[in-house]
């Protein structure tokens, strides 16, 4: 009886406190399910210190791992970090909780280019975290030709000198682009065309690596890479001999977002976390740790000139115009995997 009274008093007091300030109670929790090494630990620690919320973090290494675990009903997560096409799929399947925009005023810091995207019109369910592109890195000491496009990369002269992302959807999208087909148009007819292109390209590739393609480039085992821009930015900082090229055919623009699963218990805290991360000073810290394309325009202003001029992190307006985001292609993914696998073993 006594504890019950104390509880009532406490919660009343807490509610009162909440009405004035955003101070949190000791028992508040937040379960984050995110990519490993994408949200710096000190950002999470600072958030916990500032709000008093107890944060626990679980990591995954690919969108699909997260989907598989979420799909099987494993874990109780309050915030997840899906890429754009996964947001689209999750919205379609009604697995996300609509955001309370009033709780996330800092959404205004995001550049208009990254808001209201086709995968989540009006940002009803997701907040952009980081964006990026796929591009070409050239070791200019080893490759003298001027490389401007995917077709320049995949030439017989470059056989055995190429590293690409180990990602069937990406590889197929480059082949589609080289034929002038939009990346999301994966009909059987178009895939057949892509297969034709890839049967010439795939034998030229030496290494497939999505996690750290920079290793093969830095070690001199290959001379050209088609990689994530974050990898490119690290390479450019490491050595002047590397050059970053946005393919003339266009390329993939990815947007990793934050979203709240429908099953989340601590959704209010999740929104608090989103709002926290959207502060320019916090977002700047993330940019410094992971040199991707930061959609937070206020945070970009805080970066040094050198950071802003890294062409891999921040492509020109003109190049950005050529880029497309991925749409969810559902079950087509399996066929795309099969095409790439069959060409690899031939």
């Amino acid at each position: 009886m006594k504890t019950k009274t104390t509880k009532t008093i406490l919660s009343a007091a807490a509610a009162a406190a909440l009405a004035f300030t955003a101070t949190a109670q000791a028992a508040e929790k937040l379960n984050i399910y995110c990519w490993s090494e994408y949200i710096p630990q000190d950002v999470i620690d600072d958030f916990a210190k500032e709000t008093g919320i107890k944060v626990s973090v679980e990591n995954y290494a690919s969108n699909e791992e997260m989907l598989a675990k979420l799909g099987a009903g494993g874990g109780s997560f309050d915030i997840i970090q899906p890429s754009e096409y996964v947001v689209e799929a999750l919205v379609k399947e009604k697995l996300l909780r609509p955001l309370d925009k009033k709780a996330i005023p800092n959404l205004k810091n995001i550049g208009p280019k990254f808001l209201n995207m086709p995968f989540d019109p009006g940002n009803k369910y997701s907040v952009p975290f980081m964006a990026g592109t796929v591009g070409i890195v050239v070791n200019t000491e080893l490759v003298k030709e001027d490389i401007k496009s995917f077709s320049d990369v995949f030439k017989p002269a470059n056989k055995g000198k190429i590293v690409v992302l180990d990602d069937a959807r990406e590889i197929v999208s480059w082949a589609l682009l080289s034929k002038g087909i939009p990346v999301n148009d994966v009909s059987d007819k178009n895939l057949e065309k892509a297969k034709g292109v890839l049967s010439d390209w795939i034998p030229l590739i030496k290494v497939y690596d999505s996690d750290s393609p920079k290793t093969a480039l830095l070690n001199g085992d290959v001379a050209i890479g088609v990689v994530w821009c974050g990898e490119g930015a690290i390479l450019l900082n490491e050595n002047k001999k590397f050059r970053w090229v946005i393919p003339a055919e266009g390329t993939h623009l990815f947007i990793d977002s934050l979203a709240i699963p429908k099953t989340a218990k601590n959704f209010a805290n999740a929104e608090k976390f989103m709002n926290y991360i959207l502060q320019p000073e916090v977002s700047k810290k993330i940019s410094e740790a992971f040199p991707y394309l930061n959609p937070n325009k206020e945070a970009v202003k805080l970066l040094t000139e050198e950071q802003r001029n890294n062409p891999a992190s921040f492509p020109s307006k003109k190049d950005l115009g050529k880029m497309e985001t991925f749409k969810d292609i559902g079950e087509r993914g399996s066929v795309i995997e099969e095409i790439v696998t069959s060409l690899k073993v031939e």
Partner: protein
Amino acid sequence: MVFAFLYLPIALLVVFSFNSSKLNIRWEGFSTKWYEALLTNKVLITAFENSLLVALFTTLLSTLLGTIGAWMLHRYRFPYQRALALLIFIPMVMPEVLMGVSLLVLFVQFLNLPLGFTTLVISHTTFCFPFVLVGVQARLQGLDPFLEEAAMDLGATPLKAFWKVILPYLMPAIVSGALMSFTLSLDEYIVSVFTTGAQSQTLPLKVYGMAKVGLNPQLNALSAIFIAATVVVAIISHTLARRKTP
């Protein structure tokens, strides 16, 4: 020679733990900063503790299951014994991702177990104990069947005969099996992704995906410390054992 082969990458790892560069590729100068950073990195240390704890429990359980299982299958003739013996190999052949996802579904939808330490130990034990069992069975082959009988003729109960005669005979296989289980559990990633919860994040879960920004050199430091500590403990226990048996 073979020991040199085994320790070559480890030597490199120790060298790189003192490298001042963040990328593990070139030597750029001596530094102990990764060791300093490691001491304050709570996430990494907690994950490491979790890994050790899971590996210890897994080792204990799989050694028990594997040893007792091997002995019983050797000693008695159970109906469907051959089928039973085949089943033991399934966890060894089954690709990790299939095992991880089916165990996840089993835990969440059928057994209603919350994901965490328990589910992690269960799934690790499932793929570790066959290693113990197969090893112990190999040792049992060629065991003199009269050994146990002789002990029993001298008045020992079956339990006592097992304890006093068979178990000491099996010890080398049990130790090997335990070492294998511990090693397998310590480094498991894919099965762990699917079967653990936020409270029991192990080291591999933190390490994977790190390659994107360059493997954190603190990991080299952590491995170096752990290996050094193990070797020191081994040497101490070795010399102690020697003193006892002059």
